[in-house]
């Protein structure tokens, strides 16, 4: 019984870690898509952020500098997306896919050119990474039965970026629902003409939304390269940007529900890791490939059948052109 409890807690612990990039990306996508800009390029921006973080951490040995540059790189990609889709009213999906494809290629090329390790960045020491931090009072609180164990096993001992991801959710909810910027953001995704006639610049509002989106993707990438891992590895985002987008849609473009969706996907992943090599009653050992595919299969099932109709922001994907 005690063992099972610890097992559950460890799975929960893994879930938080796995869900962190999803949460950052889902919140990033929320800002962009609520403003009416489809962002399929979460994946690419996160990967670019991861590469920047890995490279800068390797060169400077400073995790904070790595984070800063990752955010800047990701934001500049967001601006490229904005330039194509807001200023030039291009197709938002094509622009996003273009970013994904070029980043997947560029990171490997640049990585090879700079570090000559097959597209990987050098492995980092602890000082150049965001290492797990022990929350205060683990010693004393940890002694308390049950709650203490939860605190020590699951809640404490994560990278700073995990806590930032958890903080990003209420912060996003607050910005979107309680501030003037949030009201306008929601409005511009529903009916940009109404925002325009209210004397607010649609262009500037959408640019701000995609910049926030870029910044958050930079955090996600940083976590991948120097939080969860100790270097950048080619294609390390592994489709998590798309999963985050799925979580956003699954969560109907709302911060807390999208967060919940991220946790579900994180949990599936964490369980998949746990299940590898484990003999299940009646089934026997489940093939690794099937387990690894599980989160993706469930994503498809959940998206196809269980959420009903997700009501997207009305003006999503439609470039704004003044009438007449």
């Amino acid at each position: 019984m005690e063992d099972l409890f610890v097992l559950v807690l460890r799975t929960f612990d893994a879930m938080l870690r796995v869900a962190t990039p999803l949460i950052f990306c889902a919140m990033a996508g929320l800002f962009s898509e609520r403003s009416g800009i489809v962002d399929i390029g979460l994946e690419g921006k996160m990967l670019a952020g991861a590469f920047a973080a890995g490279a800068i951490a390797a060169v400077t040995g400073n995790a904070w500098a790595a984070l800063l540059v990752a955010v800047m790189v990701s934001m500049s990609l967001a601006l490229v997306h904005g330039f194509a889709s807001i200023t030039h009213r291009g197709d938002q999906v094509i622009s996003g896919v273009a970013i994904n494809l070029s980043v997947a290629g560029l990171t490997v090329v640049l990585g090879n050119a700079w570090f000559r390790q097959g597209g990987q960045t050098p492995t980092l020491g602890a000082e150049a990474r965001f290492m797990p931090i022990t929350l205060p009072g683990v010693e004393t609180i940890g002694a308390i039965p049950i709650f203490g164990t939860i605190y020590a096993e699951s809640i404490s001992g994560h990278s700073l970026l995990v806590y930032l991801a958890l903080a990003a959710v209420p912060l996003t909810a607050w910005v979107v629902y309680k501030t003037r910027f949030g009201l306008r953001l929601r409005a511009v995704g529903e009916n940009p003409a109404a925002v325009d006639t209210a004397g607010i610049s649609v262009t500037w509002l959408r640019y701000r939304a995609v910049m926030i989106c870029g910044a958050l993707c930079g955090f996600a990438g940083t976590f991948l390269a120097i939080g969860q891992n100790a270097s950048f590895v080619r294609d390390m985002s592994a489709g998590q940007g798309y999963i985050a987008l799925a979580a956003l849609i699954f969560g109907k473009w709302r911060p807390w529900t999208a967060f919940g969706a991220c946790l579900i996907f994180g949990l599936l992943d964490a369980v998949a890791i746990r299940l590898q090599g484990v003999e299940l009653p009646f089934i026997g050992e489940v093939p690794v490939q099937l387990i690894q595919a599980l989160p993706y299969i469930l994503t498809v099932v959940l998206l196809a059948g269980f959420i009903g109709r997700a009501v997207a922001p009305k003006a999503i994907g439609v470039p704004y052109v003044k009438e007449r």
Partner: protein
Amino acid sequence: MSSYALKLTGINKAFGPVQANKDVYLAVAKGEIHGVIGENGAGKSTLMSILYGFYEADSGSIEVGGDAVRIRNSDDAIALGIGMVHQHFMLIDSFTVLENVMLGAESGPMLASSEVKAEAELLRLEQEYGLHVDLNAEVGGLPVGQQQRIEILKALYRGAEILILDEPTGVLTPQETDKLFEILQALKSQGVTILLITHKLREIMAVTDGVSVMRGGEMVAHRRTADTSTEELAELMVGRKVRLDVDKAAPHVGETLIQVDHLMVTDHRGVDRVKDVSFTVNAGEIVGVAGVSGNGQSELLQVLAGIDAPSKGRVVLVGVTATPESPGDPAQRRRHGVAHVPEDRHRLGLVGKFAAQETAILGYQATDAVNKGMFLDLDAVREQTEMMMAEFDVRPPDPSLKSANFSGGNQQKLILAREMTKAPKVLLVGQPTRGVDIGAIEFIHKQLVSMREAGCAVLLVSVELDEILTLSDRILVMCAGELVGEVPIEEADERTIGLMMTGVPREEAANAAAPAPASQEGEARV
């Protein structure tokens, strides 16, 4: 200090080769209700867009309250106290009334404090002008009349002293229109200057103090409303004499060609759109279906045309029976002499990217008249299109021009030509004059009457009550999917029908409408 709230001088604006505004002059005195009328494309909307900062004029000057100003964007206009109620409401459906009003005029970066301030101010405005709306209701669920009030509140909340209303009555019932005019009078008495953009002459006569007429981008006349008449204004708008009423002989009613029995239509969400509707239409008469848009008329028309299937009941058209089991299809209807002019011509009537001659045979593309063996006979198509264009006065008469490049009126005339020249036994018509100029309306109305004279059974669905009253021999009124009642044209008047459109049974409506002024009879209906 000028007594003009607003003065525009020498306004010019061109879009490429099109001169949308030519040396336009407009002066509006403080606290008056001033109408601006003109046909579609006369330049009214461009002028108002210049005033509201959507566009900047190429040349010319604008004075607000006697000071020369420059309006570069909506922000400038709002700061000068100019408010606009757009034809298509600029509202966010998923927001509450309060949020919609606040948007863009929040008092600080946090919403909570803005809400408190806006709520207090709005309650004051509601009191002062009698504009009652529930501030916490979600806008998407409110009737259009209420949504329009929100637009007016939005403008007032931003401190508007000059209020521009663009075609404000297009979506309103007659009762809602009356209520709107009351509100406008209340605003006027508080010193608000109002610019009313419309193509409905009766509204100009009913509510304005002065009126300016635009035609072809120019301002052609300024009149005091008291010194002019609908006839004069119509003539100024079109540039020639216009007959506003339609001559028709007494109907020669023949056999029953449309029979609808206990028809029910349920949409894919399970909502009943048409509820137990029964009626007949006979050869040689026009039966009008009146109702506020979205009360089941569209669904009724689509079932009759074979586009949708009935859920219960049946319809019989020229001997073809459509039931839930065998609903038929539009091609089957056409083969039996049922022609359909759809309500939404862009969605169902034509393909914008097709040449006019292709639009002119849509639905009839498989008939022998335009085919030679397995190929289209393009020479015949062109020839027939040219004939239709000549007969129905479609301009420009160019069969190879893209359908989308014709004006609304000419698109509609082409569709009418397509359907009418097949000598149908039944003609189903939806919104025949939506977005059509007054000159073309006159023509279309004549054509519909000529179909009736030729012994065709015509079912006319329109949200324009004037049109229904002008053309119909009998009027069916629909509300919330049900048939509220039937009124023969001799006993029909606008107020009764208007009340019935809100679901009031005929007896009650007739009583309530009794004190209506007797002058309605003989008044021009446009």
